[in-house]
């Protein structure tokens, strides 16, 4: 245990500081974990590798966790991966259970984070070998499985699927990117739009536009009536939290953590898919999921444990293949190259010390995150007590900063906020559904690449069924998911009819 001598007070201090700054970044709508890591990357020059890693891993864990705060309290996902947290978190906050929702989320987060750290520590090289069994075909099926949540998420299946397809369509605008192996040609737009839309709409501005700005427009239309953002939120009352909420949710917690770790592990599939997939599976597999989407803690558990489990998962391919698992680890790779450390299949055996240091930092950051958030929640939840006329302008301002900064300074991303703010407003007005639309948008471009590339390589549609046993298993899951949502919608229709009759 030689590495213990490398752990000093500064090391822990930096990890804790990282977690704190990360939480703040994550909690501000529009600021993400990726951005937190990116802005602090230059600091690692001065800090040296081990101290630098402590800071960055703290930021990573904190940033992913912090995203739950605006998701629950303001219905704006703080980071793209906390999108599914809004589905149940915000309804709970509206019922006055914001504090409870946050506490459930924090516990789910820390469990997810620790489970994924354990998986990373014990099985990284083995899992890396497993992850390369997933080629374009299997990755496409994973995305399809995640998309299947759309059917069960919407109140009217037809409208939900239509909204989802619109989301996919929107994600295809722009070029078929060379960096994904496409031909770099643009589509779905007019020539004059090309200077702005060459790379299409970027995810984060779309997300905060459609959630943040459109919420403000809807409120403005109603005249921004109540002085308090949400006077129904009362603390103490109705916000009762106890560990018994987790009773019978252990399977969900563990399953979602593993799903998060697993999705994080697949390079390119990306962070947001993790929580969506975990949410889908909870919806399909749990005994009673009728309340999900209306404010059920089980939805929060699935979403938050999965998105924190992403951290350990995304580090697996980074440390055992040299390939980042998500956008944040892609920035993290910079910390290694800056210090002249190679990441690749031999990283762990050749840098055992650094490897143990990273594990220590990861576990410690999760624990710090837990204590910071769990005890600060009471104060954080008071955000909703700020009068709307103060809160809203600040939200718009922070959304602007986030949108502008996400791609290191592009003005069109700020206009995207407004475009999708208005779109989000119209979509809700004419009765389309926002959640399926945004899930379609998040997963659409990946679906395209994996689908087209699979066909390019194999030249036949049958490959999706015959590629590998993994593909067959994924198809079974997809079928189960679709069948489940059809049964559910028939049930609810029958129930409604009965209610009408009686």
């Amino acid at each position, binding site marked *: 245990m030689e590495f213990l001598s490398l752990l000093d007070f500064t090391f822990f201090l930096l990890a804790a500081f990282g977690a704190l700054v990360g939480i703040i970044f994550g909690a501000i709508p529009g600021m993400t974990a990726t951005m937190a890591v*990116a802005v602090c*990357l*230059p600091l690692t020059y001065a800090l040296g590798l081990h101290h630098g890693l402590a800071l960055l891993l703290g930021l990573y864990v904190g940033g992913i966790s912090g995203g739950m705060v605006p998701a629950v309290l303001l219905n704006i996902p703080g980071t793209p991966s906390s999108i599914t947290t809004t589905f149940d978190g915000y309804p709970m906050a509206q019922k006055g259970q914001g504090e409870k929702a946050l506490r459930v989320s924090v516990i789910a987060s820390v469990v997810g984070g620790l489970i994924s750290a354990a998986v990373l520590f014990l099985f990284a090289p083995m899992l890396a*070998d497993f992850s*390369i069994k997933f*080629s*374009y075909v299997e990755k496409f099926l994973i995305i399809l499985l995640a998309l299947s949540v759309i059917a069960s998420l919407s109140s009217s299946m037809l409208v939900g699927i239509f909204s989802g397809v619109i989301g996919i369509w929107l994600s295809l605008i722009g*070029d078929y*990117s*060379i*960096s*994904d*192996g*496409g*031909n*770099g*040609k*643009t589509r779905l737009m007019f020539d004059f739009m090309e*200077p702005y839309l*060459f*790379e299409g709409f970027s995810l984060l501005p779309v997300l905060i536009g459609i959630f943040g700005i459109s919420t403000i427009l809807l409120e403005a239309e109603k005249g921004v009536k109540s002085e308090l953002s949400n006077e129904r939120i009362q603390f103490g009352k109705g916000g009762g939290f106890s560990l018994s909420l987790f009773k019978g949710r252990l399977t969900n917690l563990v399953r979602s953590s593993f799903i998060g770790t697993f999705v994080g592990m697949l*390079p*390119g599939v990306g962070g947001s898919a993790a929580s969506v997939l975990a949410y889908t599976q909870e919806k399909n597999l749990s005994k009673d999921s009728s309340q999900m989407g209306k404010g059920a803690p089980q939805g929060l558990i699935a979403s938050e444990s999965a998105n924190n489990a992403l951290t350990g998962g995304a580090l697996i*391919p980074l440390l055992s*293949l*040299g*390939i*980042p698992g998500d956008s944040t680890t*892609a*920035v*993290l*790779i*910079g910390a290694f*190259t*800056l210090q*002249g450390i*190679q990441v*690749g*299949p*031999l*990283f762990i055996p050749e840098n055992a010390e650094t490897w143990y240091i990273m594990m220590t930092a990861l576990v410690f950051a999760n624990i710090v995150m837990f204590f910071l958030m769990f005890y600060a929640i009471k104060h954080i939840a008071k955000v909703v007590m700020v009068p709307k006329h103060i809160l809203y302008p600040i939200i718009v301002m922070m959304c602007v900063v986030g949108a502008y900064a996400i*791609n*290191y*300074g*592009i003005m069109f991303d700020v206009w995207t906020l407004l475009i999708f703010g208005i779109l989000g407003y119209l979509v809700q007005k004419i009765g389309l559904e926002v959640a399926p639309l945004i899930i379609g948008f998040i997963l659409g471009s990946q679906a395209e*690449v994996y689908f087209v*590339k699979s066909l*390019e*390589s194999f030249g036949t549609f049958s490959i999706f069924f015959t590629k590998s046993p993994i593909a067959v298993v994924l198809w079974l899951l997809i079928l189960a998911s679709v069948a489940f949502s059809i049964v559910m919608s028939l049930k609810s229709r029958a129930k409604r009819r009965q209610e009408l009759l009686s």
Partner: protein
Amino acid sequence: MTVSKKTLAGLGSAVALASMTLGAGVAMAQEGELRGNVRVVIGSTSTGGDTYQNSTIVVDKLAEHLDLNMKVDAVGASSAFRTLDRDSRGNTLMIFHDQSYLGYLYGVEGYENIFEKYTVGPTVAINPGNAYLVPKDSPYETLDDIIAAVGDGEEVRVAIQPGGVSEIGFSALKNAISIEHPGMEDNLVAVNTGSQADKNQQLFDDQADLINGTVQANEQYTRLPEDDQKAMRFVWLTARQGTIEQAPEDGLGQTTREQLLEYVEPNVHVTMGDDETFTFDKEFFFLYNKDMDPGIVEQIDEALTEIYAEGEIQEVQKNSFFIPNFKPSEEASEYLHEKMSRYEGIIENIK
């Protein structure tokens, strides 16, 4: 309503007025020099990649030397060109590599002739790592085996990212085959894919026989035991012999410079016809707005000349496996233009 509009107009004009006076103050600084905050946009969106890493090394030194506030932003090629187009004051500079003209030669949307549209600034460094690899248990021992096999009518699939740096080696190989085995070049097939992860994956899936990669990203894979599905072997580094010779003696990871030299010319020969051997060094250089004050071009040239004379930056670059390669603007522009026309010939040949 009227009140609010008036207030808005009032405030707007007040801000505009204030800014103008301040703006005038800023403009008082000397003409023909960098001033204020300078932003260096790069053609890559990754802050973990070689473009960002190399640019920060150079820009940090430059900022220190000129005592200015300078910052590298990874906005990506299309946004970087557009940002540069709009600012002729010298507050926006760009650093990119050979992709900037290769994209144009391959006819990728969004790329234009940089020699016409921009001022080409100084080169600063080379990334010598552009490489081609085969699986460790591949029947092809050398690149010559591959050329011969394709010449015999065997199909060889090469995983590349289309439209630039990753494709140029493939194009050169195809060109060489068309010279040595006319008519057989179509047996060399491109598998168009994306990131390094995707290219590796094509090799693991047995969807490609040869992949484009880099020394930096793939060196560890070449040290895996042969029975590992992930094990690879270098067959070709596109860099010039002279470039690799300047690399640190220890090479990279546990592959020494001596070993790396086995995979470059003249040991590996990819003909361009007329006894000429194809080589490709990925070089990083500045791009400026065409209308930017020539004084600034000169100022940066001078500053970099001094920085490179000090000798410290070379150490930093070599530590990160970059080969220092400073050429002042005029020389660089001429050199790169010549480089472009050589590759243009190859790409035309195999069309």
